[in-house]
């Protein structure tokens, strides 16, 4: 499913670059993500993939180039405002709120749609209590969808790894993102879990959410993405559909040229 050519992209990076001290981590990177697409961003270790995500989500401010989202320039916006415009993300190393239950963790994803003011929070007004009940209901619906309802009251960080990944995903999904950015969602999952993840990612896309993902697991990358951008040493070296990418000489060299890291599937 290739997106219609010439359509307005949902996300567009234009000549984006960033330097840390003397290190050019990402250089002149241009690519776009069409609405409804599942885009993969791959590259050998240290290629700068997570840095790209951090620039899109406002964690880092790019030193060059512009990032546009849904027609707006979001370059350099702080992370909470990027989230406000509809970009939500997961992390390469899971970042759950320790010591809080699954429900409390996933409620965080509803922060932006919560209306109660600070004084309503403190005084527990009837409207505030109603809203809390609605938030919990809506969160539970998402937990059911991701098969987490039975552990809603468990401490999130005490769950098995695969489940923690799902909790993090649930936390972004309750926020109704326009663009979901997944940073190595299959990392640490077993084969069964990673196949299930493929299904989950497709069903998220089918519910109308555009997805940009970094992944090392080629089973996931080749099976779920519509198109792929390959970067190495912070530069784009190829872009295209999964089949094209697998036979692209530059890509093969980038992967095989490395000390026998994972070969492309």
């Amino acid at each position, binding site marked *: 499913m290739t997106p219609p050519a010439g359509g307005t992209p949902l996300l567009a990076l234009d000549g984006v670059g960033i330097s840390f001290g003397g290190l050019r981590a990402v250089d002149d990177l241009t690519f776009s993500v069409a609405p409804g697409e599942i885009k993969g961003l791959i590259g050998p270790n240290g290629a700068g993939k997570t840095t790209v995500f951090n620039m899109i989500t406002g964690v880092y401010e790019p030193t060059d180039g512009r990032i546009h989202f849904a027609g707006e320039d979001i370059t350099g916006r702080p992370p909470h405002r990027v989230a406000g415009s509809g970009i939500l993300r997961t992390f390469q190393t899971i970042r759950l709120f320790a010591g809080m*239950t699954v429900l409390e963790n996933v409620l965080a994803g509803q922060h932006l749609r919560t209306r109660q003011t*600070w004084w309503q929070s403190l005084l527990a007004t009837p409207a505030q209590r109603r809203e809390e009940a609605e938030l919990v209901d809506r969160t539970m619906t998402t937990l059911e969808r991701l098969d987490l309802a039975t552990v809603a009251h468990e401490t999130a960080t005490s769950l098995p790894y695969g489940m923690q990944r799902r909790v993090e995903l649930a936390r972004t999904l309750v926020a109704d993102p326009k663009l979901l950015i997944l940073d190595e969602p299959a990392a640490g999952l077993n084969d069964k879990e990673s196949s299930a993840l493929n299904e989950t990612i497709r069903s998220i896309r089918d519910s109308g959410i555009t997805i940009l993902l970094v992944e090392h697991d080629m089973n996931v990358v080749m099976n779920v993405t519509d198109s792929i951008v390959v970067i190495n040493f912070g530069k784009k070296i190829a872009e295209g559909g999964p089949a094209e990418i697998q036979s692209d000489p530059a890509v093969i060299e980038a992967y095989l040229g490395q000390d026998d890291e994972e070969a492309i599937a």
Partner: protein
Amino acid sequence: MVASRRTPWVALRRAVGPLLWLLGLLVPILLNGSWISIMAIFAIYAMVALSQDIVLGRAGMYDMGHAVYFGVGAYVTAILNTQFGWPIFVTWPVAIVAAALIGALLSAPIVKLRGDYLLVATIGFNIIFVLALGNNVANLTGGPDGIFGVGVPHLFGWALSSQGTLFYLDWLALAAVLLLMRNLERSRIGRVFRYLKEDELAATTLGVNARNYKILAFAIGAGIAGAAGTLFAVQLASVSPGSFVFTESVTLFAIVLVGGQASIPGVLLGTALMFVVPQVFRGLAQYRYFAFGIAMIVVMVLRPQGIWPRGRAR
């Protein structure tokens, strides 16, 4: 929250707090004068410790200058009452708002600092605050001796002058603060404070404006401390800089850590250990800090989550 976990055991556990509070109402009837004032002081310090817990235990900011806000509340009431003749029930809300505003103003430039740096900055605030009070700022704070002759509150022409009635005022105020704390647990801001403590980056990528919420935590904590400060000025009928020095802030900080962060019973227990238990062993009262010092070491080594840690689910 959601159904489940509403077992009789939970219901019983939930009733313990309110029952203890009701039991406290008997204090002026059953106990002598010195105990009434000990329990009144306990109620006041419990409010301050709970407010410290909002900033430290919940929002996770190492505020070691919390006595400043307690002091602002006490001095605002003392000054307005003694110099301008304002009734206590008028100075009280002013003291709360003043403390909250100062909390917001002082925290605004420092909330972006990392834990240890923020801690040092708050100590700086505390030192400057006490220095200013001692230097008789604007001829209002009365210098090192402070201000004497703070009046008693009047309610509909009735003076709350006896120890017993003052105790009831403090005890009611404590109940109000406990209700606020309970509401906080079940609200967006209470959750956001804890998100920020556990993982600020994750919270901001979910849309949380970290800076605003951290300032809000300071403002709410300071406002409650200011409310307690007013009661403190009334209880002692005077204020002096010595009550709001840096070591008082350290004590409040330690009460939260020793009792249990973000745990209401833990913080109350910590306050009781610090302010009530020494009175039971009168002859040993001068060893108060010694005993609490030992408790701080032992608890941090053996039970770093505090004596009565926060329960997992509510």
